[in-house]
């Protein structure tokens, strides 16, 4: 007997998200983001989401579409374009009602706490900075143990970042939810999955379980980042991280990212961008991106 098949469609994943839920988005800034799932949220009627992400265009797009009631982040960047234009606009226009800006290490600690079912974990980050001033809900905790000088250190008590749903994008997965990353960095996708009640993995390609590690060029077992016990559903979305990186399958689409950033700066250009790229389903998006590139080359 094999474990159960968890394959879903993009829309079936998004159907499991409800208004007001807390959604964690894996990857890191403009790297290996589950963009096909993010685009499906843009198309949906979902609203009032709490988004938890070390973020890039995932947050820019969701903010521009008015989907975010609360944002938990440490930075927002497109890397080659340092500041995310849609996020800037949302912050400067005050359109995201609730903002929780953390240090990026605190963010990881919050995910660890959630993954380990702890209310908080202590760390130094945050102390003395405005992260604790702007987030009065984050408390400090005094160590019960004296240091060698007899001091009881007062540390940041980073609250658990519990998620209702985690969305991550891996290179390969099987239908049961085991998944590998083939690029240079796992990011924190396993932590996102463990911090969530339900985690959904999108991937470039679904293989049979043996294919995840065997094959003409075997994949080291250390690349199996996500185990099926953490996963509620799997969806194959080729080029699904576009326009972020999905190394080694593809790198960031810098041309498209530039086009996105330029469009975000102008209302009319943005309307045209939405119409061209975001008004249809994922297949329509991928076709529009292909057309964009042949235009650029032609």
């Amino acid at each position: 007997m094999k474990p159960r098949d968890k394959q879903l469609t993009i829309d079936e994943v998004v159907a499991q998200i409800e208004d007001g839920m807390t959604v964690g988005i894996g990857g890191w800034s403009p790297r290996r983001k589950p963009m096909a799932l993010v685009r499906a949220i843009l198309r949906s009627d979902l609203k009032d989401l709490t988004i938890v992400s070390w973020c890039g265009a995932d947050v820019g797009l969701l903010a521009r579409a008015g989907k975010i009631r609360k944002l938990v982040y440490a930075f927002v960047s497109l890397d080659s374009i340092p500041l995310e234009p849609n996020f800037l606009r949302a912050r400067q226009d005050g359109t995201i009602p609730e903002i929780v800006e953390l240090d990026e290490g605190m963010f990881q600690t919050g995910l660890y706490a959630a993954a380990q079912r702890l209310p908080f974990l202590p760390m130094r980050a945050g102390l003395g900075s405005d992260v604790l001033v702007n987030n009065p809900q984050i408390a400090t905790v005094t160590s019960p143990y004296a240091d060698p000088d007899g001091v009881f250190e007062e540390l940041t008590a980073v609250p658990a970042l519990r998620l209702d749903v985690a969305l991550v994008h891996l290179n390969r997965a099987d239908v049961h939810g085991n998944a590998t990353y083939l690029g240079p960095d796992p990011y924190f996708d396993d932590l996102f999955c463990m911090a969530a009640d339900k985690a959904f993995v999108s991937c470039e390609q679904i293989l049979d379980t043996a294919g995840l590690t065997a094959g003409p060029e075997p994949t080291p077992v250390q690349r199996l980042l996500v185990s099926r016990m953490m996963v509620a559903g799997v969806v194959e979305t080729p080029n699904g991280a576009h326009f972020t990186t999905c190394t080694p399958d593809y790198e960031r689409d810098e041309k498209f990212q530039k086009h996105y950033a330029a469009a975000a700066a102008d209302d009319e250009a943005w309307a045209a961008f939405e119409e061209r790229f975001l008004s249809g389903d994922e297949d329509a998006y991928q076709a529009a991106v292909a057309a964009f590139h042949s235009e650029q080359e032609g």
Partner: protein
Amino acid sequence: MVSTGSTTGSEVTRAEVCAAAIADAFKDDGEIFASPMGMLPMLGVRLAKLTSNPDLVISDGESLFLAGVPPLFAKGDVVEGWIPFRKVFDVVAYGKRHVMMGATQVDRHGNQNISAIGPFDRPTRQLLGSRGAPGNTVNNRTSYWVPKHSSRVFVEQVDTVSGVGPKRAKEAGPAASRYNDIHRIVTNLAVLDVGGPDDTVRLLSVHPGVSVEDVQQATGFELAVDGPVETTREPSSSELVIIREMLDPKSLREREVPS
């Protein structure tokens, strides 16, 4: 003041003085992870590794520790370790790291802002976000690189405290101050630290061709000065060869700090 120390015969540029000053910020660090954010810091760190501190551990800025010292933005060098983002956080807490970050604002007490200009609730200009600055500054040695020294950057008080200066760290208690170590602020005009009275920003040296008055004019608060201010050293001829011919043959440095 400007001399021709180079084997290639041309005058030492301001960018090259900055690179050597950044290298000097890392020379006494020993065997730690040097994390430069931005181009000139990357150039300075690699210069230090090839001259004053070969024990420095450097990365490709992504996920690999590099055994060699490749030119800026080059790939394909020998790898000596793996440093994905999650392990960076481990090293921050471990403490064997010196990061040189950028700063949109730095204030009299060496607090840094990369988060937002104006009120945090509704910024007039949203920046990157606090990134790792709060954690860096209470865990490992932190320096700042400011390519355009001006009173817009050096302000009486930052709008948002991302990176924590020594005074605020002390006020937050021993857990915050124990490892707080704001080492150097290198700018296109000068080298500073936070060793002034009451943990304030202090002028250590002015670059060749820059006066103390120039630096004070470009600073939005009164700088602490101990006695006569030195002139920042110029890179040696062997350092200039390394900068010009090995690390940055395309002179990318001159774009960040035009002469």
